[in-house]
């Protein structure tokens, strides 16, 4: 039980850090990797919450396929975000 709580808290902290990084960075490839880390940690959380079906979906679609769809889209367009402030 205590181990599960520690793993959960670690996952949540990592998710928040990765999501923050994905928002702040101007390199879109890094942002996509950040959001994929969020999905991966979410799938671990689903497993801890006794939802293995949802965890498998999240790992396969959220962390696997959608990351590659975003990466393909970035490869066809531009990699760096333009600065909005100017």
């Amino acid at each position, binding site marked *: *039980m205590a181990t*599960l*709580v520690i793993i*959960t808290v670690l996952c*949540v902290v990592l998710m928040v850090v990765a999501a923050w990084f994905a*928002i702040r960075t101007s390199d879109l490839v890094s942002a996509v990797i950040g959001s994929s880390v969020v999905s991966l940690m979410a799938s671990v959380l689903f497993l*801890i*919450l*006794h939802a*293995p*079906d949802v*965890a*498998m*979906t999240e790992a*396969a*679609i959220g962390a*696997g*396929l959608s990351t*590659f*769809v975003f990466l*393909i*889209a970035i*490869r*066809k367009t531009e990699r760096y975000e333009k600065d*909005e*402030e100017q």
Partner: protein
Amino acid sequence: MKRVSLKKRFRVKNIFVFVVLVYLGFQMLSLGFLLDLKDVKGVAKYYLENDIKDTQSANVVTSIVVNYRGFDTLGEVTVLFLAATGLGAILSGYRKVKKQKILANTMLQYGSKPLLAIIILFGAYIFIHGHLSPGGGFQGGTVIATGFLLMLLALEGYEIKHGYIKWTESLAGLTFVTVGLFGLFLLGSFLADFLPLGKVGNLFSSGVIPIIYVAVGFKVGSELTGLLDNMMGVVE
């Protein structure tokens, strides 16, 4: 109206959002760790209590998705089909890339081929055992599509035959609807379970669930493979 940049708006709202998220996170923790199965009420209680009797499926999620709420799953598969068709329609005007700029190295090229077989085996295992273990048609299909994505990335000039994909997809969808119509004609309601239920834990058990989930697995796998192939092929 003054245009406020996304980053500035984020800064104004973030304290409020942070508090709400921390609150929701603690709610979710308490849900996950403190939930007692005796507290489950209503239709969820019915599913948990009568799942074995009604469907003989060891996985309650699968019996809800395919048996109790099978018609919703048909709608879900249709939505996925429409999304893949729409993307294909948008991207069909572009010509295909024949050559990749950077070749994958030799280890990747030769190592990925046996890996494809293992990935497809794993995906098929997930959707064939959908009524016994976690997972099912959607998850298995996605795993298979990931295998073909590996081939598209690793091998130069790897082409997926769109004829095969179209036929697989159509046959799988047809199987789903045909099973539903059999239920309609034999038992009087669409997707009714007309096969013998068998014994819980066996591979050939729980009626129509394995047939439908294998069909869904083929359909999702071929759709996502076609979608990835469409996206990879667009010239920049």
